[in-house]
């Protein structure tokens, strides 16, 4: 059902393995680090499924308001963290279907969380415009970064875990040093032509809806609500690639759609969810769309990959989960 966009599109790049239908909008979908299970958050619940058998393993219930983001511990597929509009971050043991820790401090909806790769720190971004770094073993707050002037929408880490990259609705991306908590850099698309003379009303920054670090940590992929995705070489403060949606349409102007890098193929790709066109995959260098899957399932808000893109899983606002396998002939 992959729609060929032009003759060079590999419409067999991914093969749909199965579809699961839920009744609520899915805000976050994650594959566990061991690749055996996946988790979704919908409403106030987290559901864990076996990836092979599609069987529901357990439901984690306890959050009192909607869950915005979930993350598996990178070290332990039994541990998952959730952040919610009820102002809490919860740590869950999947085996015991039990909440094992509650972290509270944010004063407004918590929009996004990330583990560092050692699994001992959790970084959370919130609509209260701050980013907080938590030490999980002690439950202590290491620091709070007064990061933005609008809700923080997304955070990501460079693979060496030395830089936290945050994107927010104020249209800025900031890079923070994890070790010292200093702000290292600020990136924005607006140009006030090299001077600081432009008043704020002159400068329109479209909200940043998602940020993702490249596998080598030298580039940042940012999605913003002007409907474009940009690839930044942050050392030079420069956008080096801009990606457009199907037939030049916007990718998403209303929703935060997640992106990932796929490096299991010969030329590296990026994948993003979109508002109206399902999932879209681009070649990084040519910027051409090489794959598009659209079954009118609603906006694809969240997606995840496993093993550099061998598996791709996506979930939509209408509650449709799709699992795709990378076609063997494109693997390297």
């Amino acid at each position, binding site marked *: 059902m992959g729609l060929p966009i032009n003759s060079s599109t590999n419409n067999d790049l991914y093969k749909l393995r199965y579809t699961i239908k839920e009744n609520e909008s899915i805000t976050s979908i994650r594959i566990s680090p061991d690749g055996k299970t996946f988790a979704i958050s919908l409403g106030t619940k987290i559901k864990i499924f076996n990836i092979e058998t599609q069987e529901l393993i357990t439901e984690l219930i306890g959050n009192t308001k909607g869950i915005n983001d979930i993350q598996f*511990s990178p*070290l*332990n597929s039994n*541990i998952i963290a959730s952040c919610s509009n009820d102002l809490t971050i919860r740590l869950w*043991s999947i085996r015991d279907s039990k909440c*094992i*820790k509650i972290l509270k401090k944010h004063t407004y909806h918590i929009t996004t969380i990330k583990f*560092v*790769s*050692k*699994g*001992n*720190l959790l970084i959370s971004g919130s609509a209260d415009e701050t980013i907080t*770094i938590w*030490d*999980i*073993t*002690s*439950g*202590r707050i*290491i620091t709070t970064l007064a990061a933005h002037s609008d809700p923080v929408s997304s955070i990501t880490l*460079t693979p*060496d875990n*030395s*830089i936290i990259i945050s994107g927010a609705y104020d249209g800025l991306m900031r*890079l923070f*040093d*994890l*070790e*010292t908590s*200093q*702000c*290292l*850099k*600020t*990136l924005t698309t607006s*140009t*006030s*032509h*090299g*001077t600081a003379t*432009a008043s704020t009303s002159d400068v329109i920054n479209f909200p940043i809806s998602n940020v993702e670090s*490249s*596998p*080598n*940590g*030298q*580039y940042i992929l940012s999605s913003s609500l002007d409907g474009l995705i940009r690839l930044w*070489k942050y*050392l030079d403060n420069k*956008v*080096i*690639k*801009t990606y457009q949606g199907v037939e030049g349409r916007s990718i998403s102007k209303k929703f935060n759609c997640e992106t990932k*890098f796929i*490096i299991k193929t010969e030329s*590296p790709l990026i994948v993003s969810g979109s508002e109206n066109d399902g999932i879209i995959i681009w070649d*990084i*260098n040519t*910027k051409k769309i090489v794959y598009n899957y659209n079954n009118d399932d609603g906006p694809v808000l969240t997606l995840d990959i496993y093993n550099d893109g061998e598996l791709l899983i996506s979930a939509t606002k209408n509650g449709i989960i799709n699992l795709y396998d990378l076609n063997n002939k494109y693997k390297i």
Partner: protein
Amino acid sequence: MNLSLQDPFSVAKEFPEQLTNNLNFGHSVTIQFNYKGDYLASGLIDGSIVIYDCSISNGGIIAHLNEYSHIRPITSINWSKCGRYLLTTSQDWYVKLWDLNKINSMPIIRQIKFDGPIWSANLHPNDKFKFVASLYEDSPVYVDLTNENSPKIIKLSTTPLELENWVMDGEQLKKKSKKNEKHLTLVCIFTKDGKYIFTGTSKGWLNIFETETLKIIHSIKISNSNIKNLALSSNGRKLAINSSDRVIRQINLSDLINEQAINNQDEKFDFEIEHKYQDVVNRLQWNSLTFNHNGEFLIASTHGQSSHDLYIWETSNGSLIKILEGSNEELIDTKWNYPKCCIGSIGIDSGMIYLWQIQFPQKWSALAPDFVEVEENIDYIEKEDEFDIIDETELNKKRLEKEEEDVVDVITKDSTDARGFDLLQESFIIPINYEVNLLV
């Protein structure tokens, strides 16, 4: 990656100058950074071990190993190169080898009990099951724990080579050997490739053993009093010897790794004392010493209640270049975290770990992308086209066209960081027990 965005002058600094943090989970008596510099193990006075995360400056706690641990103060800690195993020694007569992958079940994979407290141990650089240890009032030992049920323990001699020969030569020297009974080995270490063992004795002798045969191949009298510590630089070419005669002696070793070039045994260990470090005014003793990553600097903590400092010398010309201050108590164990360029030391009274780290100035231009920091006032000359009104869409189109040319590599990682340390070195990640709550 963070370093490439920090102030390059601060990144290039070779040693920290400011006390920035302290870690105070329990009363620490000995510390050790792992090879990659991302974890710090601290041995406590109650015999347990705390592991800190060095990726944040004020040290999150990874684990507190208090089950199965020692019951008396820890005397030394060694990391394996891969970062997965820890060798700990204690005053409770035990040496324990920990597998940190089993941190949440039964982490001790080997342990061995001696007939008394252990001064210190040194792990073989390439084999986690082999170590040398100096024991209290006993001969030093070489231990091979490869076989779980029958550990090999071999006692090493303390008597220097020359004296041993005399004893064998004639009866009248028996007296001399009696006098030698109180001659003890206080410290022993492997060379960087594990081929030789250096030991220091209570009478100022440095003995060199060949690891393969465990025979003394060379002995040299360094001083007249105890040799308390030995420190080797990480390239293996510099040896610092701390003796209780208040002098640290530095010896330049011959190239033991590429030793084919040297045929003659004697030539190989033909030492000369390169520098002597001492404080002749205050007549201070030194508690501990360590080199930096390339052996260009040597750092030592001072003994006695009057002084609370760390001295840093340059090893090429032997000059004192900096005294690190900030703690208000005597400092004991001192270690250098090479990749992070951080010095850690322990206060003797509080058991607090003090950290000296390089501080980076906050660049204000980092907060606003259209601001530039200037050193001094400049007369700004407006560019010809600076306030021209340019059609944004036209500009964007041009920019998009230019984008086509750039080829992006999102996969290849940098192999070294801004300080030149290997970034691709794999190191073990210690599991986290998410269900405990460590109280800080």
